[in-house]
Protein backbone atom coordinates (compact mmCIF):
# COMPACT_ATOMS: atom_id res chain seq x y z
CA UNK A 1 0.00 0.00 0.00
CA UNK A 2 1.75 3.14 -1.06
CA UNK A 3 1.15 6.10 1.09
CA UNK A 4 2.22 9.71 1.27
CA UNK A 5 4.82 10.12 3.95
CA UNK A 6 4.90 13.32 5.98
CA UNK A 7 6.70 15.47 3.47
CA UNK A 8 8.33 18.71 4.47
CA UNK A 9 5.39 21.04 4.70
CA UNK A 10 5.63 24.68 5.66
CA UNK A 11 4.64 24.76 9.29
CA UNK A 12 2.74 27.59 10.75
CA UNK A 13 2.72 28.54 14.39
CA UNK A 14 -0.68 26.95 14.77
CA UNK A 15 0.68 23.61 13.64
CA UNK A 16 3.54 23.81 16.11
CA UNK A 17 1.12 24.53 18.93
CA UNK A 18 -1.10 21.67 17.93
CA UNK A 19 1.86 19.35 17.82
CA UNK A 20 2.85 20.25 21.33
CA UNK A 21 -0.65 19.47 22.49
CA UNK A 22 -1.07 16.36 20.45
CA UNK A 23 2.18 14.90 21.70
CA UNK A 24 2.56 11.41 20.32
CA UNK A 25 -0.23 11.97 17.81
CA UNK A 26 1.89 14.45 15.87
CA UNK A 27 3.97 11.65 14.47
CA UNK A 28 1.05 9.52 13.43
CA UNK A 29 0.57 8.84 9.75
CA UNK A 30 -3.01 10.04 9.96
CA UNK A 31 -1.99 13.46 11.15
CA UNK A 32 0.80 13.57 8.61
CA UNK A 33 -1.69 12.83 5.87
CA UNK A 34 -3.95 15.59 7.11
CA UNK A 35 -1.14 18.09 6.98
CA UNK A 36 -0.92 17.38 3.29
CA UNK A 37 -4.68 17.83 2.96
CA UNK A 38 -4.39 21.11 4.82
CA UNK A 39 -1.89 22.38 2.34
CA UNK A 40 -3.93 21.21 -0.60
CA UNK A 41 -7.10 22.82 0.67
CA UNK A 42 -5.33 26.04 1.64
CA UNK A 43 -3.81 26.36 -1.81
CA UNK A 44 -7.17 25.88 -3.43
CA UNK A 45 -8.93 28.34 -1.12
CA UNK A 46 -6.21 30.93 -1.61
CA UNK A 47 -6.56 30.73 -5.36
CA UNK A 48 -10.31 31.01 -5.03
CA UNK A 49 -9.92 34.15 -2.93
CA UNK A 50 -7.50 35.75 -5.37
CA UNK A 51 -9.95 35.10 -8.17
CA UNK A 52 -12.80 36.60 -6.16
CA UNK A 53 -10.78 39.75 -5.61
CA UNK A 54 -9.91 40.12 -9.27
CA UNK A 55 -13.49 39.39 -10.21
CA UNK A 56 -14.68 42.17 -7.92
CA UNK A 57 -12.37 44.63 -9.63
CA UNK A 58 -13.69 43.47 -12.99
CA UNK A 59 -17.25 43.99 -11.79
CA UNK A 60 -16.62 47.48 -10.49
CA UNK A 61 -14.80 48.72 -13.59
CA UNK A 62 -17.37 47.14 -15.89
CA UNK A 63 -20.21 48.74 -14.01
CA UNK A 64 -18.50 52.12 -14.20
CA UNK A 65 -18.11 51.64 -17.92
CA UNK A 66 -21.81 50.96 -18.22
CA UNK A 67 -22.66 54.14 -16.30
CA UNK A 68 -20.32 56.03 -18.57
CA UNK A 69 -21.98 54.60 -21.66
CA UNK A 70 -25.42 55.68 -20.49
CA UNK A 71 -24.25 59.25 -20.90
CA UNK A 72 -24.05 58.95 -24.68
CA UNK A 73 -27.69 59.88 -24.99
CA UNK A 74 -27.30 63.15 -23.17
CA UNK A 75 -24.04 64.41 -24.55
CA UNK A 76 -23.29 66.04 -27.91
CA UNK A 77 -20.10 64.16 -28.71
CA UNK A 78 -20.74 60.49 -28.16
CA UNK A 79 -17.42 59.45 -29.68
CA UNK A 80 -15.42 60.78 -26.70
CA UNK A 81 -17.44 58.66 -24.36
CA UNK A 82 -17.08 55.62 -26.54
CA UNK A 83 -13.31 56.06 -26.68
CA UNK A 84 -13.11 56.46 -22.94
CA UNK A 85 -15.23 53.36 -22.50
CA UNK A 86 -12.92 51.42 -24.78
CA UNK A 87 -9.95 52.46 -22.62
CA UNK A 88 -11.74 51.34 -19.49
CA UNK A 89 -12.60 48.00 -21.02
CA UNK A 90 -8.99 47.51 -22.02
CA UNK A 91 -8.11 47.83 -18.36
CA UNK A 92 -10.80 45.29 -17.53
CA UNK A 93 -9.35 42.95 -20.09
CA UNK A 94 -6.00 43.23 -18.34
CA UNK A 95 -7.69 42.08 -15.17
CA UNK A 96 -9.27 39.19 -17.00
CA UNK A 97 -5.77 38.33 -18.13
CA UNK A 98 -4.87 37.97 -14.47
CA UNK A 99 -7.78 35.60 -14.07
CA UNK A 100 -6.52 33.62 -17.03
CA UNK A 101 -3.09 33.48 -15.44
CA UNK A 102 -4.51 32.14 -12.18
CA UNK A 103 -6.46 29.54 -14.09
CA UNK A 104 -3.49 28.34 -16.11
CA UNK A 105 -3.37 24.58 -15.83
CA UNK A 106 -6.52 24.47 -13.71
CA UNK A 107 -9.98 23.18 -14.40
CA UNK A 108 -11.75 26.50 -14.77
CA UNK A 109 -15.05 25.05 -13.63
CA UNK A 110 -13.57 24.35 -10.23
CA UNK A 111 -13.25 28.09 -9.69
CA UNK A 112 -16.08 29.28 -11.88
CA UNK A 113 -18.15 30.55 -9.00
CA UNK A 114 -15.30 32.88 -8.03
CA UNK A 115 -15.14 34.81 -11.27
CA UNK A 116 -18.52 34.37 -12.94
CA UNK A 117 -20.03 37.60 -11.55
CA UNK A 118 -17.17 39.68 -12.95
CA UNK A 119 -17.25 37.99 -16.30
CA UNK A 120 -20.99 38.45 -16.67
CA UNK A 121 -20.60 42.12 -15.86
CA UNK A 122 -17.85 42.41 -18.46
CA UNK A 123 -20.02 40.76 -21.09
CA UNK A 124 -22.75 43.22 -20.22
CA UNK A 125 -20.41 46.19 -20.60
CA UNK A 126 -18.73 45.11 -23.79
CA UNK A 127 -21.99 44.15 -25.47
CA UNK A 128 -23.49 47.49 -24.44
CA UNK A 129 -20.66 49.38 -26.09
CA UNK A 130 -21.01 47.16 -29.14
CA UNK A 131 -24.70 47.85 -29.41
CA UNK A 132 -24.25 51.60 -29.17
CA UNK A 133 -21.68 51.50 -31.95
CA UNK A 134 -23.12 48.88 -34.23
CA UNK A 135 -26.74 48.48 -33.25
CA UNK A 136 -26.22 44.74 -33.06
CA UNK A 137 -25.42 41.99 -30.61
CA UNK A 138 -21.80 41.12 -30.15
CA UNK A 139 -21.13 37.42 -30.57
CA UNK A 140 -19.41 35.16 -28.08
CA UNK A 141 -16.64 34.58 -30.61
CA UNK A 142 -16.00 38.29 -30.94
CA UNK A 143 -15.81 38.64 -27.17
CA UNK A 144 -13.40 35.77 -26.80
CA UNK A 145 -11.26 36.97 -29.68
CA UNK A 146 -10.32 39.99 -27.60
CA UNK A 147 -9.43 37.89 -24.57
CA UNK A 148 -6.20 36.52 -25.92
CA UNK A 149 -3.19 37.38 -23.83
CA UNK A 150 0.27 36.49 -24.96
CA UNK A 151 2.61 34.96 -22.46
CA UNK A 152 5.93 36.59 -21.52
CA UNK A 153 6.60 39.24 -24.11
CA UNK A 154 10.02 38.77 -25.55
CA UNK A 155 11.45 42.08 -26.63
CA UNK A 156 14.37 41.63 -28.94
CA UNK A 157 16.52 44.75 -28.41
CA UNK A 158 18.26 44.34 -31.72
CA UNK A 159 15.05 43.93 -33.59
CA UNK A 160 16.68 41.33 -35.74
CA UNK A 161 14.41 38.43 -34.95
CA UNK A 162 12.68 37.25 -38.06
CA UNK A 163 9.82 35.59 -36.28
CA UNK A 164 8.13 36.79 -33.13
CA UNK A 165 9.21 34.62 -30.24
CA UNK A 166 6.40 33.28 -28.16
CA UNK A 167 6.95 31.44 -24.92
CA UNK A 168 4.37 28.85 -25.82
CA UNK A 169 0.63 28.77 -26.47
CA UNK A 170 -0.99 32.14 -25.93
CA UNK A 171 -2.91 32.56 -22.71
CA UNK A 172 -6.62 32.98 -23.33
CA UNK A 173 -9.73 33.38 -21.34
CA UNK A 174 -12.77 31.86 -22.89
CA UNK A 175 -16.12 33.14 -21.70
CA UNK A 176 -18.50 30.21 -21.40
CA UNK A 177 -21.78 30.23 -23.33
CA UNK A 178 -23.58 30.28 -20.02
CA UNK A 179 -21.81 33.42 -18.77
CA UNK A 180 -22.33 35.03 -22.16
CA UNK A 181 -26.06 34.43 -21.97
CA UNK A 182 -26.33 35.74 -18.45
CA UNK A 183 -24.37 38.85 -19.38
CA UNK A 184 -26.60 39.47 -22.39
CA UNK A 185 -29.68 38.99 -20.22
CA UNK A 186 -28.40 41.74 -17.91
CA UNK A 187 -27.64 43.88 -20.95
CA UNK A 188 -31.33 44.00 -21.74
CA UNK A 189 -31.97 45.79 -18.46
CA UNK A 190 -29.45 48.46 -19.39
CA UNK A 191 -30.96 48.78 -22.85
CA UNK A 192 -34.35 49.32 -21.31
CA UNK A 193 -32.88 52.12 -19.22
CA UNK A 194 -31.24 53.58 -22.28
CA UNK A 195 -34.59 53.49 -23.98
CA UNK A 196 -36.17 55.53 -21.20
CA UNK A 197 -33.43 58.11 -21.15
CA UNK A 198 -33.38 58.48 -24.91
CA UNK A 199 -37.10 59.19 -24.91
CA UNK A 200 -36.57 61.74 -22.19
CA UNK A 201 -34.07 63.43 -24.46
CA UNK A 202 -36.58 63.67 -27.26
CA UNK A 203 -35.12 60.80 -29.27
CA UNK A 204 -38.12 58.92 -30.57
CA UNK A 205 -36.30 56.65 -32.99
CA UNK A 206 -34.17 54.71 -30.53
CA UNK A 207 -37.10 53.17 -28.63
CA UNK A 208 -38.34 51.47 -31.78
CA UNK A 209 -34.90 50.18 -32.68
CA UNK A 210 -34.39 48.94 -29.17
CA UNK A 211 -37.78 47.32 -29.08
CA UNK A 212 -36.97 45.28 -32.13
CA UNK A 213 -33.54 44.35 -30.82
CA UNK A 214 -34.82 43.38 -27.39
CA UNK A 215 -37.55 41.32 -28.97
CA UNK A 216 -34.97 39.35 -30.91
CA UNK A 217 -32.97 38.71 -27.79
CA UNK A 218 -36.10 37.77 -25.91
CA UNK A 219 -37.17 35.35 -28.61
CA UNK A 220 -33.75 33.76 -28.50
CA UNK A 221 -34.00 33.28 -24.78
CA UNK A 222 -37.52 31.92 -25.06
CA UNK A 223 -36.29 29.33 -27.49
CA UNK A 224 -33.76 28.18 -24.93
CA UNK A 225 -36.44 28.21 -22.28
CA UNK A 226 -35.64 25.83 -19.50
CA UNK A 227 -32.98 23.84 -21.29
CA UNK A 228 -30.23 26.24 -20.32
CA UNK A 229 -28.68 26.89 -16.94
CA UNK A 230 -31.05 27.62 -14.13
CA UNK A 231 -30.03 31.26 -13.83
CA UNK A 232 -31.10 31.89 -17.40
CA UNK A 233 -34.70 31.03 -16.58
CA UNK A 234 -34.68 33.57 -13.78
CA UNK A 235 -33.32 36.29 -16.02
CA UNK A 236 -35.85 35.45 -18.70
CA UNK A 237 -38.53 36.67 -16.33
CA UNK A 238 -36.84 40.05 -15.85
CA UNK A 239 -36.21 40.24 -19.57
CA UNK A 240 -39.90 39.88 -20.28
CA UNK A 241 -40.64 42.77 -17.97
CA UNK A 242 -38.02 44.96 -19.62
CA UNK A 243 -39.32 44.10 -23.05
CA UNK A 244 -42.86 44.78 -21.92
CA UNK A 245 -41.93 48.26 -20.73
CA UNK A 246 -40.20 49.08 -23.97
CA UNK A 247 -43.06 47.74 -26.10
CA UNK A 248 -45.61 49.73 -24.12
CA UNK A 249 -43.55 52.85 -24.55
CA UNK A 250 -43.37 52.31 -28.29
CA UNK A 251 -47.10 51.86 -28.37
CA UNK A 252 -47.61 55.08 -26.43
CA UNK A 253 -45.24 56.94 -28.68
CA UNK A 254 -46.95 55.63 -31.77
CA UNK A 255 -50.45 56.41 -30.59
CA UNK A 256 -49.86 59.62 -28.73
CA UNK A 257 -46.32 60.57 -29.64
CA UNK A 258 -47.06 63.73 -31.51
CA UNK A 259 -49.32 64.98 -28.74
CA UNK A 260 -46.85 64.64 -25.89
CA UNK A 261 -44.52 67.54 -25.20
CA UNK A 262 -40.95 66.38 -25.41
CA UNK A 263 -40.19 67.02 -21.77
CA UNK A 264 -43.00 64.75 -20.72
CA UNK A 265 -42.10 61.84 -22.90
CA UNK A 266 -40.27 60.14 -20.05
CA UNK A 267 -43.56 59.91 -18.16
CA UNK A 268 -44.75 57.55 -20.86
CA UNK A 269 -42.81 54.86 -19.03
CA UNK A 270 -43.60 55.63 -15.44
CA UNK A 271 -47.37 55.43 -15.83
CA UNK A 272 -47.24 51.74 -16.58
CA UNK A 273 -47.76 49.62 -13.48
CA UNK A 274 -46.24 46.18 -13.26
CA UNK A 275 -48.70 43.66 -14.65
CA UNK A 276 -48.55 39.99 -13.69
CA UNK A 277 -46.55 37.95 -16.13
CA UNK A 278 -49.07 35.78 -18.05
CA UNK A 279 -46.61 32.89 -18.17
CA UNK A 280 -45.74 32.93 -14.51
CA UNK A 281 -45.58 29.43 -13.14
CA UNK A 282 -44.27 28.03 -16.40
CA UNK A 283 -40.73 29.36 -15.97
Amino acid at each position, binding site marked *: *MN*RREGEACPRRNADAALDRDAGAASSSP*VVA*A*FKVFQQE*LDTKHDKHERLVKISRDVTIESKRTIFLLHRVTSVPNAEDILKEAEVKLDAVRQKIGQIAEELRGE*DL*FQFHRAFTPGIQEYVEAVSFLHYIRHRGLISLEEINARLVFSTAEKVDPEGTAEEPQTAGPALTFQVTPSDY*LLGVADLTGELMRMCISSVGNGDIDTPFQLSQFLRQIHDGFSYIGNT*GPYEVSKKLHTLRQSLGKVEDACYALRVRGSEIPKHMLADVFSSRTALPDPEEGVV
Partner: protein
Amino acid sequence: VDFGEFSCGDEIRKVVQTLEQAAREILTVLQSVHQPSGFKEIPSKCAKARELFCTVRTQLGELKTKFPVEQYYRFHEHWRFVLQRLAFLAAFVVYLETETLVVREEVAKILGIQVVREKGFHLDVEDYLAGVLIMASELSRLAVNSVTAGDYTRPLRISNFINELDSGFRLLNLKNDPLRKRYDGLKYDVKKIEEVVYDLSIRGLAKDAGDK
Protein backbone atom coordinates in the same frame (compact mmCIF):
# COMPACT_ATOMS: atom_id res chain seq x y z
CA VAL B 1 -24.80 29.34 -29.18
CA ASP B 2 -24.34 25.61 -28.83
CA PHE B 3 -26.11 23.82 -26.05
CA GLY B 4 -25.00 20.35 -27.00
CA GLU B 5 -22.96 20.42 -23.83
CA PHE B 6 -26.05 20.18 -21.70
CA SER B 7 -27.12 16.86 -23.13
CA CYS B 8 -24.16 15.26 -21.33
CA GLY B 9 -26.26 15.57 -18.21
CA ASP B 10 -28.77 12.89 -19.17
CA GLU B 11 -26.11 10.34 -20.05
CA ILE B 12 -24.23 11.10 -16.86
CA ARG B 13 -27.36 10.79 -14.77
CA LYS B 14 -28.05 7.34 -16.11
CA VAL B 15 -24.63 6.04 -15.12
CA VAL B 16 -24.82 7.77 -11.75
CA GLN B 17 -28.04 5.90 -11.08
CA THR B 18 -26.30 2.60 -11.66
CA LEU B 19 -23.52 3.70 -9.34
CA GLU B 20 -26.04 4.59 -6.65
CA GLN B 21 -27.57 1.16 -6.98
CA ALA B 22 -24.16 -0.48 -6.60
CA ALA B 23 -23.42 1.68 -3.58
CA ARG B 24 -26.68 0.60 -1.98
CA GLU B 25 -25.77 -3.04 -2.50
CA ILE B 26 -22.37 -2.61 -0.90
CA LEU B 27 -23.94 -0.75 1.99
CA THR B 28 -26.45 -3.55 2.53
CA VAL B 29 -23.63 -6.04 2.82
CA LEU B 30 -21.64 -3.90 5.23
CA GLN B 31 -24.58 -2.75 7.34
CA SER B 32 -25.00 -6.27 8.60
CA VAL B 33 -21.86 -5.95 10.71
CA HIS B 34 -23.96 -4.03 13.20
CA GLN B 35 -25.93 -7.14 14.04
CA PRO B 36 -24.59 -9.42 16.77
CA SER B 37 -24.28 -12.28 14.33
CA GLY B 38 -22.63 -10.04 11.81
CA PHE B 39 -19.53 -9.43 13.89
CA LYS B 40 -18.11 -12.83 13.33
CA GLU B 41 -18.60 -12.61 9.62
CA ILE B 42 -16.71 -9.38 9.08
CA PRO B 43 -13.97 -10.87 6.88
CA SER B 44 -16.42 -12.53 4.53
CA LYS B 45 -18.51 -9.40 4.31
CA CYS B 46 -15.48 -7.35 3.40
CA ALA B 47 -14.60 -9.86 0.73
CA LYS B 48 -18.12 -9.67 -0.66
CA ALA B 49 -18.02 -5.88 -0.64
CA ARG B 50 -14.71 -5.92 -2.49
CA GLU B 51 -16.29 -8.10 -5.16
CA LEU B 52 -19.08 -5.60 -5.58
CA PHE B 53 -16.53 -2.83 -6.05
CA CYS B 54 -15.59 -4.53 -9.31
CA THR B 55 -18.92 -3.44 -10.69
CA VAL B 56 -18.31 0.07 -9.38
CA ARG B 57 -14.98 0.22 -11.19
CA THR B 58 -16.67 -0.73 -14.41
CA GLN B 59 -19.40 1.83 -13.93
CA LEU B 60 -16.95 4.62 -13.12
CA GLY B 61 -15.04 3.64 -16.23
CA GLU B 62 -18.30 4.09 -18.11
CA LEU B 63 -18.93 7.45 -16.45
CA LYS B 64 -15.57 8.76 -17.60
CA THR B 65 -16.62 8.42 -21.20
CA LYS B 66 -19.70 10.57 -20.89
CA PHE B 67 -18.02 13.95 -20.85
CA PRO B 68 -14.80 15.68 -21.94
CA VAL B 69 -12.05 14.72 -19.50
CA GLU B 70 -10.94 18.30 -18.88
CA GLN B 71 -14.41 19.33 -17.71
CA TYR B 72 -14.55 17.20 -14.57
CA TYR B 73 -15.67 20.06 -12.36
CA ARG B 74 -18.32 21.22 -14.77
CA PHE B 75 -20.28 18.05 -14.08
CA HIS B 76 -18.86 17.26 -10.66
CA GLU B 77 -22.12 17.93 -8.88
CA HIS B 78 -23.78 15.07 -10.74
CA TRP B 79 -21.68 12.40 -9.08
CA ARG B 80 -20.35 14.12 -5.99
CA PHE B 81 -22.90 12.57 -3.67
CA VAL B 82 -22.45 9.01 -4.87
CA LEU B 83 -18.67 9.33 -5.03
CA GLN B 84 -18.61 10.45 -1.41
CA ARG B 85 -20.72 7.46 -0.45
CA LEU B 86 -18.41 5.15 -2.35
CA ALA B 87 -15.41 6.72 -0.63
CA PHE B 88 -17.15 6.08 2.70
CA LEU B 89 -17.84 2.46 1.79
CA ALA B 90 -14.23 1.92 0.72
CA ALA B 91 -12.99 3.50 3.92
CA PHE B 92 -15.38 1.36 5.94
CA VAL B 93 -14.22 -1.86 4.31
CA VAL B 94 -10.60 -0.99 4.94
CA TYR B 95 -11.36 -0.10 8.53
CA LEU B 96 -13.14 -3.37 9.12
CA GLU B 97 -10.20 -5.22 7.61
CA THR B 98 -7.31 -3.33 9.20
CA GLU B 99 -8.71 -0.85 11.73
CA THR B 100 -6.68 1.88 10.08
CA LEU B 101 -7.60 4.91 8.02
CA VAL B 102 -7.57 4.20 4.33
CA VAL B 103 -5.38 6.62 2.40
CA ARG B 104 -6.77 8.53 -0.54
CA GLU B 105 -4.70 6.55 -3.02
CA GLU B 106 -6.16 3.29 -1.77
CA VAL B 107 -9.72 4.58 -2.12
CA ALA B 108 -8.93 5.69 -5.64
CA LYS B 109 -7.51 2.26 -6.39
CA ILE B 110 -10.60 0.50 -5.05
CA LEU B 111 -12.74 2.72 -7.25
CA GLY B 112 -10.45 2.47 -10.22
CA ILE B 113 -9.93 6.21 -10.54
CA GLN B 114 -7.10 8.71 -10.18
CA VAL B 115 -5.97 10.85 -7.29
CA VAL B 116 -4.50 13.65 -9.33
CA ARG B 117 -6.82 15.70 -11.52
CA GLU B 118 -4.40 15.99 -14.40
CA LYS B 119 -4.29 12.23 -14.80
CA GLY B 120 -8.00 11.81 -15.41
CA PHE B 121 -11.23 11.22 -13.55
CA HIS B 122 -10.09 11.71 -9.99
CA LEU B 123 -11.16 11.64 -6.37
CA ASP B 124 -11.25 15.18 -5.09
CA VAL B 125 -9.69 15.51 -1.65
CA GLU B 126 -12.89 17.02 -0.26
CA ASP B 127 -14.94 14.05 -1.44
CA TYR B 128 -12.46 11.70 0.18
CA LEU B 129 -12.69 13.65 3.43
CA ALA B 130 -16.48 13.67 3.27
CA GLY B 131 -16.42 9.90 2.87
CA VAL B 132 -14.15 9.60 5.90
CA LEU B 133 -16.56 11.70 7.95
CA ILE B 134 -19.50 9.55 6.91
CA MET B 135 -17.52 6.59 8.11
CA ALA B 136 -16.91 8.27 11.44
CA SER B 137 -20.67 8.33 12.03
CA GLU B 138 -20.90 4.72 11.04
CA LEU B 139 -18.16 3.87 13.52
CA SER B 140 -19.88 5.63 16.38
CA ARG B 141 -22.87 3.43 15.66
CA LEU B 142 -20.62 0.40 15.47
CA ALA B 143 -19.13 1.20 18.86
CA VAL B 144 -22.59 1.14 20.40
CA ASN B 145 -23.57 -2.07 18.67
CA SER B 146 -20.30 -3.77 19.53
CA VAL B 147 -21.14 -3.46 23.19
CA THR B 148 -24.61 -4.82 22.57
CA ALA B 149 -23.07 -7.74 20.76
CA GLY B 150 -20.76 -8.41 23.67
CA ASP B 151 -17.55 -7.06 22.17
CA TYR B 152 -16.18 -4.73 24.85
CA THR B 153 -12.81 -4.10 23.34
CA ARG B 154 -13.73 -2.72 19.97
CA PRO B 155 -15.20 0.56 21.26
CA LEU B 156 -11.87 1.52 22.80
CA ARG B 157 -10.07 0.93 19.55
CA ILE B 158 -12.72 2.89 17.70
CA SER B 159 -12.32 5.67 20.21
CA ASN B 160 -8.58 5.93 19.65
CA PHE B 161 -9.12 5.90 15.93
CA ILE B 162 -11.78 8.60 15.95
CA ASN B 163 -9.76 10.83 18.24
CA GLU B 164 -6.83 10.60 15.91
CA LEU B 165 -9.12 11.42 13.01
CA ASP B 166 -10.38 14.42 14.91
CA SER B 167 -6.82 15.65 15.47
CA GLY B 168 -6.27 15.38 11.78
CA PHE B 169 -9.38 17.32 10.88
CA ARG B 170 -8.49 20.07 13.29
CA LEU B 171 -5.50 20.86 11.13
CA LEU B 172 -7.68 21.81 8.21
CA ASN B 173 -8.68 25.38 7.54
CA LEU B 174 -12.16 24.78 6.27
CA LYS B 175 -14.43 27.28 4.65
CA ASN B 176 -18.13 27.55 5.47
CA ASP B 177 -19.03 24.89 2.97
CA PRO B 178 -20.75 21.48 3.10
CA LEU B 179 -17.51 19.81 4.19
CA ARG B 180 -17.29 22.07 7.19
CA LYS B 181 -20.88 21.34 8.11
CA ARG B 182 -20.20 17.66 7.90
CA TYR B 183 -17.07 18.06 9.98
CA ASP B 184 -19.12 19.83 12.63
CA GLY B 185 -20.94 16.52 13.08
CA LEU B 186 -17.72 14.73 13.97
CA LYS B 187 -17.73 16.09 17.48
CA TYR B 188 -21.02 14.33 18.15
CA ASP B 189 -19.52 11.08 16.96
CA VAL B 190 -16.52 11.65 19.22
CA LYS B 191 -18.79 12.35 22.16
CA LYS B 192 -20.98 9.33 21.54
CA ILE B 193 -17.99 7.02 21.45
CA GLU B 194 -16.49 8.60 24.54
CA GLU B 195 -19.71 7.88 26.37
CA VAL B 196 -19.61 4.26 25.31
CA VAL B 197 -16.03 3.96 26.51
CA TYR B 198 -16.92 5.67 29.77
CA ASP B 199 -19.85 3.34 30.34
CA LEU B 200 -17.58 0.37 29.85
CA SER B 201 -14.74 1.61 32.00
CA ILE B 202 -16.75 2.58 35.07
CA ARG B 203 -18.27 -0.83 35.04
CA GLY B 204 -14.89 -2.41 34.66
CA LEU B 205 -16.03 -4.06 31.47
CA ALA B 206 -13.14 -3.04 29.28
CA LYS B 207 -9.86 -4.32 30.63
CA ASP B 208 -6.62 -3.29 29.04
CA ALA B 209 -7.78 -3.69 25.50
CA GLY B 210 -7.24 -0.13 24.29
CA ASP B 211 -3.91 -0.73 22.64
CA LYS B 212 -3.77 -1.33 18.93
